[in-house]
């Protein structure tokens, strides 16, 4: 079911947590809200769930206004970071609970519980209590409880963040497969960019109560619109260089060789950034920089400060005067103290707006 969030605000006393968030989530979409802690992503999710009421704005699910509806009337399911299992009930009873509240027939209940448990590999564990399960199993139970009643919308609040790294990767693919197969509209909250990139149909990057950019994972990665997005996504993050736009639309950069052949699309975006002074940055992903011979045609000479061989890739930290940045390449013979040439391919250079810059649309 489609979800429509329309200029929603949330304030706790004087604290503004969500500042006018608007977004349309399509039927069957896997929508991820990504951001650091305190950015308002969980509060936004909780408002969709009905666990918090917005200070202003409107939330509708499947066309119906649900802004102030009780959670039980929204036909949503939710998975919590700490699982939210009922500790006094067995796994079976936990999964059965939403069906019991809906007064389904006992045999129908048992059949559904067993089906769902089977799907999530919980068949053997039905008679256990949550305290006798591992973290991964508990999260599976919470997913089963959410899925057993075929909800319209599935909300997930950092469901994997209490699991260890290996299990997290496994569960990530499992959840994605499961939800995609069922075609349920899902809103997923996380602070983990890898999770967001891997699972999302669309990512909303959030900062200070705003959705800074809403786009597909690759779009967010390739064309971050603001400094926050550029620095939050990617590891190591995008290299950013102070730049300026001159009268007539020419963009100049602190590293002159980088700016001279900016593509048309980026130039157009640069023109939209109203506040030219310090409002403009040029960005390029570390893996898009090309290492050349020092002094080569079109290359900028840089001093190698540190080399980090990671096996699959190598991080080269370099400086040009006061400007420091990082290059990700295959294996290299360069070592600290060497001078190398760096080429920034013009089609991969991006114009990025500074966080407080005003962008005209």
């Amino acid at each position, binding site marked *: 079911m489609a979800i429509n969030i329309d200029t929603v605000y949330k304030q706790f006393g004087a604290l503004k947590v969500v500042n006018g968030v608007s977004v349309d989530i399509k039927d069957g979409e896997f929508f991820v809200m990504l951001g650091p802690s305190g950015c308002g992503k969980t509060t936004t999710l909780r408002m969709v769930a009905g666990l918090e009421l917005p200070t202003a704005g409107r939330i509708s699910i499947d066309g119906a206004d649900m802004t102030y509806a009780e959670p039980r009337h929204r036909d949503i399911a*939710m998975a919590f970071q700490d699982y939210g299992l009922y500790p006094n009930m067995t796994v079976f009873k936990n999964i059965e*609970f939403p069906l019991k509240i809906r007064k389904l027939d006992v045999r129908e209940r048992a059949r559904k519980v067993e089906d769902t448990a089977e799907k999530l590999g919980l068949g053997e564990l039905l008679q256990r209590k949550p305290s006798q399960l591992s973290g991964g199993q508990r999260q599976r139970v919470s997913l089963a409880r959410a899925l057993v009643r075929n909800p319209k919308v599935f909300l997930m609040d950092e469901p994997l963040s209490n699991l260890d790294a290996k299990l997290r990767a496994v569960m990530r693919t499992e959840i994605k497969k499961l939800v995609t197969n069922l075609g349920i509209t899902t809103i997923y909250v996380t602070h983990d960019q890898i999770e967001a990139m891997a699972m999302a149909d669309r990512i909303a990057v959030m900062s200070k109560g705003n959705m800074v950019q809403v786009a597909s994972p690759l779009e967010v990665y390739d064309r971050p619109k603001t400094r926050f997005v550029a620095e939050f996504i990617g590891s190591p993050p995008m290299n950013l260089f102070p730049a300026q736009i001159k009268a007539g639309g020419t963009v100049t950069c602190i590293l002159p060789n980088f700016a001279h052949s900016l593509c048309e699309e980026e130039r157009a975006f640069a023109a939209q950034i109203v506040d030219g002074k310090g409002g403009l940055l040029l960005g390029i992903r570390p893996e898009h920089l090309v290492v050349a011979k020092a002094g080569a045609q079109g290359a900028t000479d840089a001093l190698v400060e540190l080399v980090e061989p990671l096996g699959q890739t190598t991080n080269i930290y370099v400086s040009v005067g006061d400007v420091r940045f990082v290059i990700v390449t295959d294996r290299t013979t360069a070592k600290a103290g060497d001078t190398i040439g760096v080429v920034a391919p013009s089609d991969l250079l991006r114009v990025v707006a500074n966080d407080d810059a005003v962008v005209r649309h």
Partner: protein
Amino acid sequence: MSNSRILKSSASALAAYALAIAAALFFAFPIFWMVTSSFKSEVDISAYPPVWSFTPTLVNYAQLFTELNAWQALINSALIVGLATCIAMAAGTMAAYALARFDVKGKEFLAFEILSIRMLPPIVSVIPMFIIARQLGIFDTPWLLIAAYALSGLPFVVWVMRVFIQDIPQSIEEAAMIDGCSRFETFWRVTLPLLLPGLAATMVIVFMFAWNEFLLASMLTSQEAKTLPVIAANAIKPKAIAWGLASAAGVMMSLPVVVLVLLMQRYLVRGLTLGAVKG
């Protein structure tokens, strides 16, 4: 583990047990003495040195029921304390839930105000209560003591249950609401079962306070609504103390509490160690 270390650890375990047994004996002895005294005759009680073997008699218990009208007092106590405990538990738990979970304006102040009832020495409130009761025409009826005990138990229930409720992760309740429960259903089906150990522990303590309460009971009753502690005090007669009678009254007063604690034991052990719900 080497031999000397085994010796050392078993020696310290032995010392710990010895200490525990000594402490248990120390605290159990008065109870033992009370129980035996209640079965002794007047002569055996006053014998010096104390007699350890004697012919048990039920004379004190008989006297308790004939002379002091203990049967009526027992019924009064059970009715008054039982009802007062129920009221304090129900009202207190709901108030505690509101204080733990809702955005009540001036919540901390409210909680403190409730606690301040407890700070008032009971003797201060006796006279006003007496006057009010006279006006309302409920003096020497069970209702007066029920109200008084419920009120004095309430702050304790609110404060203790609030901690127990805060100990339950909020996500459990949120999960229930999303699973289709209303607020009340959530409380009834999910929160309350998790609170049982805490409820049991709190209830036993509230019950015991009211069951043993003497001051209010002696001032606010005269004939009809007398409770067990009041009639037990009647064993102290103008000329002498009837030790046998007093002991018998003591045993009778203790029995219901012992039974209650035994019944609740399963919950008590978990309830008295806070945070039993986590995990």
